[in-house]
């Protein structure tokens, strides 16, 4: 490992084998995931980042046109290696089915089943599930020092943590028994009620759909143990000490509330947040060392000055200047007050405030500059 100077967050990354970036949508989570992986590559490690966002934002930032479900190497002249991929939910799921099928025929029966096609695309939590699956695959079977995962923009951290159990649970579904029972003669009598249910379903959604569902569950017979076992292993990886959950937020009131909710849910799962990155902080234009003097007065005082001056002829431009400073400080103060509770909650995890950059991160150079900001080597990247 080379001696790239870094802050506490950088040390967290350096100690970890897996970093999970979680947070609500629109807070720069994908970009953050990318620069955590890039940081590892810059310090000589072999890192891979799994992105989930269907908007292909990271691909843009990395200057890669078509990220696929398999890692592609991104060359940036760093001592380590940076790999990136974009999660393809369906093909990851297909791979999982093939892995646990006893025979080729069984996997074919499942993969061509209409019900399965719907599940792999639309069962709620499937994307989260496949994200954890991909993470596990890369972390355990891949040859990487660090795996960074971006998580789907869910409101619920548990969706991600519990995703592996969901399919297992789904296969254990009471309706599974209801649907498969009519084929077993002797339980027919006790299942009259269940069949009423099936008939009602068929009436609403059509008999084809119900038939597809039944054959899906039948095809899955015997595979559930494999899935459950995998779910337990993924669990163990997620709660392992070498896995760090990093919370990404923006300083807006609603996203801070959601981030707090995430932290709480993780805590309930006995997972502590290892780092908090707050993106897009408004600079307050305070002068360090002058906190008590007139220049450090709050937004209200600055705004009053603007109002007073607006009476004065010739002061239009200066009024705009004071308004601008007041706006900036008001925003900065509001953001800090939103963050208070959250920073307390995640303590002692390091908190990194990344100020809003006066440019958009659209290429590797910009990403690398932002990395210097996040890992404390500079405050503003240009």
């Amino acid at each position, binding site marked *: 490992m080379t001696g790239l100077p870094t802050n506490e967050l950088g040390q967290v990354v350096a100690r970890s084998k897996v970093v999970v970036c979680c947070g609500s949508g*629109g807070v720069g989570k994908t970009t953050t995931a990318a620069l955590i992986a890039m940081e590892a590559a810059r310090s000589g490690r072999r890192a891979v980042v799994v992105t989930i966002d269907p908007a292909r*934002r990271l691909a843009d930032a990395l200057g890669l046109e078509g990220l696929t479900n398999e890692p592609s190497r991104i060359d940036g002249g760093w001592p380590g290696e940076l790999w990136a991929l974009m999660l393809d939910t369906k093909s990851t799921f297909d791979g999982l089915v093939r892995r646990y099928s006893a025979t080729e025929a069984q996997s074919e029966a499942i993969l061509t089943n209409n019900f399965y096609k719907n599940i792999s695309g639309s069962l709620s939590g499937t994307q989260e599930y496949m994200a954890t699956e991909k993470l596990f695959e890369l972390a355990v079977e891949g040859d990487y020092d660090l795996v960074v995962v971006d998580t789907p923009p869910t409101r619920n951290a548990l969706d991600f943590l519990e995703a592996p159990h969901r399919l297992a649970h789904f296969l254990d579904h009471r309706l599974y028994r209801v649907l498969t029972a009519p084929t077993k003669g002797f339980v027919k009598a006790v299942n009259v009620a269940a069949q009423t249910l099936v008939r009602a379903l068929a009436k609403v959604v059509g008999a084809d759909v119900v038939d597809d569902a039944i054959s899906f569950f039948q095809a899955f017979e015997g595979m559930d143990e494999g899935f459950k076992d995998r779910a337990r292993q993924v669990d163990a990886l997620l709660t392992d000490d070498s896995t760090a959950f990093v919370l990404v937020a923006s300083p807006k009131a609603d996203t801070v509330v959601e981030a707090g909710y995430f932290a709480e849910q993780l805590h309930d799962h006995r997972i502590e947040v290892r780092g908090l990155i707050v993106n897009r902080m408004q600079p307050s234009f305070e002068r360090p060392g002058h906190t008590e003097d007139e220049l450090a007065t709050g937004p209200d005082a600055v705004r009053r000055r603007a109002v007073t001056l607006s009476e004065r002829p010739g002061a239009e431009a200066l009024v705009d200047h*004071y308004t601008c400073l007041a706006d900036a400080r008001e925003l900065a103060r509001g953001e800090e007050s939103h963050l208070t509770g959250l920073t307390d909650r995640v303590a002692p995890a390091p908190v990194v405030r990344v100020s809003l950059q006066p440019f958009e991160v659209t290429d590797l150079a910009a990403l690398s500059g932002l990395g210097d900001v996040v890992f404390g080597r500079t405050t503003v990247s240009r």
Partner: protein
Amino acid sequence: MLIVAGKGGVGKTAVTAALAVAASSVGVRTLIVEVEGKGGMPAMFGSAGLTYEDAVLVHAAEEHADGVHGGVTARTITPDDALLDYLSSHGLQRISNRLVASGALDLVATAVPGIRDILVLGKIKQLEQTGEWDLILLDAPAAGHAITFLRSARGLADAVKVGPINTQANDVLELLCDPTRCRVALVTLPEETPVNEVVETAYSLEDEVGVALGPVLVNAVFPDLAGLATDPEDAAASAGVTLLDGEADLLRAAAEFRSERTALQHQQLDRMAEELPLPQVRLPYLFTSELGRAELDLLAAAVTDGIRHLDVPGVVA
């Protein structure tokens, strides 16, 4: 009916609330429908959380500067509630509780993707037909999902050829594709990625759903401060004011930052205008940290003002 859609973090909920206030302030009886059960909206009106029941957020006949409000009401419609509602109105009430309790909805939803969405949309269509509301604002799911959500009607109309779901899907499709009854307003921010996404979403919605698009609502646009072009020292001189030691540097730094951000915003807005031939309604950036009724009124005024300047009458009213 106006469907408000946009990716997470663009302030879709605040914009929906502002649209409601704007509509209400010109006497329109407005209903907001939330489908994701998020908590933010009622707090903006100083009200408690939403349920499947109507909750009045702005009282009809509440007075304001230009006249009297038509009223804003809000409620949620979740798939579970909509399913129960649907079953009981189709004579299946007896088993409806068991269907939901046994998790049948999960299974059906998996078997028939889009059924949750169609149940919700079907319920909204039913509300539209009561004539109780002049405007229904649907706070749609985040952008990627919004397309799936709205596409569900076409998908189901094709996938399920007969039966009540087919009827439901066709009714919803008819509503969605009738520009006199329904439009989609996309919300975005004047930034690179949100603009890319809104352009992509707009074309997908038109091509794949066939829904008519209203103006793009651009949230958080910095108000112009023309005076920032003047250096603070010159500005102070022209005002006859002496700046404190170091003050000019601070003002200059703040002005530079703001000007750069503003220039980036304009660049993105121009690009969007080029790539997407839809009118833009711009809502101002709010510097206050709390979003309450006063801020909503401000946003609503910007909406009303923006729409008056458009040549497309009747988008909101």
